[in-house]
């Protein structure tokens, strides 16, 4: 679901940046007002979880891959506004350090995964939980909320892909950006997310939520003790297991490199050309492209990337937390 650069026109990205800026501003305001100060570093833990979940690529029939996001999980644990910030920062680190998701299309990815996903997932969860206020009802709410949340995000991404060939083509009729119309993009994206990524998201969300309720209820309910050690143990387990994401060796739909797209057969036949802007557009060299490092086995590169990304997220939110404390003290 990470839309790379040059798949969307700069104007599309501009529109989404304009939409996201007030959302970020309002989210930061709400988090400052509502989230207790001792929970601020937990946004980093939430972001780290989301970062790790996005590294678990799952194979999809047809040779592509998809992944869970964990947006609903963070929204249920810390509120949708905190989730919006957490996932935005996780996406920023992925884009800047690991080249996963574009720099220009960063706001679009944030709109899909950091706004639509956690907010829709969270409010669906709340709605169902209010209708069925039992333990089973809560579990059902988590599963349905997270499943629908990720699918809404995937649908939005598909529509964003799909409108590109309608709006931007060259004289020869070839698409300048993403070449697939809505009729191709929506089924391709939705199939992957309805069948695989959505199920994975629901399972991950429920399992991690249940684990956290058991070991550290303070994260969810105010006034109880927050134990972070078991959460960190879970995180280490996820880091070590992250190379499982390498088992699915295809590229996610819509995340191909310029060299892969010409041979893609989503339209039924081979596309046969590289859209102009994808071949000659904005090119950003990430520090650790695709979570790998040159000259080392992919598995070690993947684990190191997971460690660096996770630790960086926790550190960033610890720094923000301490900055807020000193501001308050002054």
């Amino acid at each position, binding site marked *: 679901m990470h839309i790379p650069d040059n798949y969307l026109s700069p104007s599309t990205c501009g529109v989404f940046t304009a939409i996201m800026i007030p959302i970020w501003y309002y989210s930061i305001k709400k988090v400052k007002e509502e989230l207790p100060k001792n929970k601020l*570093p937990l946004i980093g833990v939430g972001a780290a979880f989301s970062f790790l979940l996005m590294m678990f690529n799952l194979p999809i029939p047809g040779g592509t891959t998809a992944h869970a996001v964990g947006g609903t999980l963070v929204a249920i644990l810390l509120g949708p506004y905190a989730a919006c910030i957490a996932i935005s920062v996780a996406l920023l680190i992925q884009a800047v350090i690991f080249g996963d998701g574009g720099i220009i299309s960063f706001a679009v990815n944030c709109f899909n995964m950091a706004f639509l996903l956690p907010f829709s997932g969270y409010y669906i969860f709340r709605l169902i939980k209010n209708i069925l206020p039992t333990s089973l009802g809560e579990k059902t709410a988590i599963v349905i909320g997270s499943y629908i949340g990720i699918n809404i995000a995937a649908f939005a991404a598909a529509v964003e892909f799909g409108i590109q060939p309608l709006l931007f083509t060259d004289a020869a009729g070839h698409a300048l950006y993403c070449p697939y119309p809505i009729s191709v993009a929506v089924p391709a994206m939705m199939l992957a997310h309805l069948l695989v990524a959505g199920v994975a998201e629901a399972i991950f969300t429920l399992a991690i939520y249940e684990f956290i309720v058991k070991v550290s209820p303070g994260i969810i309910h105010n006034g109880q003790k927050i134990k972070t050690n078991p959460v960190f143990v879970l995180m280490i387990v996820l880091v070590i297991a992250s190379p499982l994401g390498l088992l699915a060796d295809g590229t996610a739909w819509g995340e191909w490199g310029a060299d892969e797209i010409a041979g893609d057969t989503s339209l039924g036949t081979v596309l046969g050309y590289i859209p102009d802007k994808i071949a000659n557009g904005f090119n950003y060299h990430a520090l*650790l492209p695709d979570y790998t*490092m*040159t*000259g*080392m086995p992919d598995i070690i590169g993947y684990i*190191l990337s997971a*460690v*660096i990304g996770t*630790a*960086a997220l*926790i*550190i960033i939110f*610890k*720094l*923000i*937390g*301490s*900055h807020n*404390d*000193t501001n308050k003290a002054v």
Partner: protein
Amino acid sequence: MIQIKPSDDHSGKLLTNMPAWLGDNDDYQPVNDNENFLSKTILSVITKLTALRENSTAHTDVFFTASFKIFLTILLILFISLSHQLLFLSIVLSGFLIYLCSLTGCTILRILKPAAFAALFSLLIILPAALFERSSFFLLPFKVFLTTGAVTALALSTPFYSITKALGGLHIPGLFIMILDLTVKYIVLLGHTAQELLTALHLRSVGKNHQKYQSLGNILGMTFIKSQEYALATHDAMLCRCFTGEYHISQQHHMEIRYIVYVMIIIILSSIYFFTEGYL
């Protein structure tokens, strides 16, 4: 402001005995002066002193001795400097980040600030090289970031007195340790003196001071004179206590489990270095 009103006969008599200027209204209004210079200097001195004082009371890790930490840091700096591969540096970076995760936000900031500034500075210096060599020009700032980070982390996690003690144990020349030891102690002592002088100046300043730089010079000059006095006093104290400048650390090493852990850590670090650099 003094105001005397000749309201009745009794006070009127009094007034006749007083000089005329005493009866005038005192309408002295001190000109507002910008005292940013004073308050900022005092604040920065206090901040530095607090940091040093916090350091002197920093909790000592029971498990990792200061000697081991110094040895590990030196070894790490050596390996980072000699490394040609991004892989080794990335492994060190991930270890460093994990360590940072276990600290509080304030401590992380105090470690990252100097490291980031040093890295930025070296990046500026090496920037012209980017025109010719695009692939590996960022290795140097990366290395600077890691080494500065490692040294700052060592300084923040270990009190100065245990660093000097550990240096004595590592057979570093006594003169070197003494200078280091005295420097650190004197920074605190002279910082205190300067802070007191600044506070005194602050309290006695009324109206506009046109000679701010002269005041600063006076304070620094006074601090210097005080430092001479302290130095003489320290010398006398050293003579009285028969201190010759040699640091004798009695070392009684018994075999402990933690030494095995130390050796393991060093072996693992060395093998990662030699393996990633292709020597193994």
